[in-house]
């Protein structure tokens, strides 16, 4: 079914959704912040 194939093709073109160094930097920074908060919470717990 050509229509379905075109839609799938259009959908697959969108992957990967974001692929850039800036995004990776921001993402890892967010990751680190959350890990830091968890670390601090463990200290508080102790």
């Amino acid at each position, binding site marked *: 079914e*050509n*229509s379905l*194939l*075109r*839609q*799938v*093709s*259009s*959908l*697959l*073109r*969108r*992957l990967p959704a974001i*692929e850039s160094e800036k995004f990776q930097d921001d993402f890892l920074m967010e990751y680190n912040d959350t890990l830091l908060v968890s670390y601090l919470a463990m200290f508080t717990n102790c």
Partner: protein
Amino acid sequence: MDIEQRQAEHIEYFVKQASAVRGSALTTVIVDATSHPSLFAFSEILAVPNILELEGTENSMYLYLLRLFAQGTWTQYKNFTGNLPQLVPDQVLKLKQLTVLTLAETTKVLPYDLLMQELDVSNVRELEDFLINECMYVGIVRGKLDQLRRCFEVQFAAGRDLRPGQLASMIETLSDWLMTSDNLLVSIQEKIKWADTMSQLDKKHHKDIEEKVDEVKKTLS
């Protein structure tokens, strides 16, 4: 999906038209289809037996034209002008729109220079007008124009007709995506199990500590 819904009716109309006529009358149908402002898919029309019969006849260049509109670009047309009929302005516009879709297939960030080269546009203003009026407003692409970095960030582009060999690549990508999703689900389930186990161990540990404390209190008293 919107674009497919909108052009389904037109595809059906032109397929019926193509099935009803033969020979040189098909050239009008092909020109009409390739000029239509809301039609960007031509595989169904190409599959009509009457259209395929044009191969090797005096009207075969119209068959090649239809194939070009299904899978080709404006640059490819310029390289093979000798073998293809002259295009009317609406067809030129359509081919340029399809060229943008093809470029968006390969990369999400399209530099203005590349677009100007591929679309035969001389300045940025003209390019942006084309992208906004003829591509975004029509609904075949969605994206952001970055004037500072001189590029067009594509968020969505409508699908073109498949080229030979593309299907295998699509199936591979879908399988890869499916595997990634399955693995992710398994990981999530494992993490849930781990969290439950740790919670139970923690509760048990608390209970043991409390019992020890009670024991020590009793001993002391």
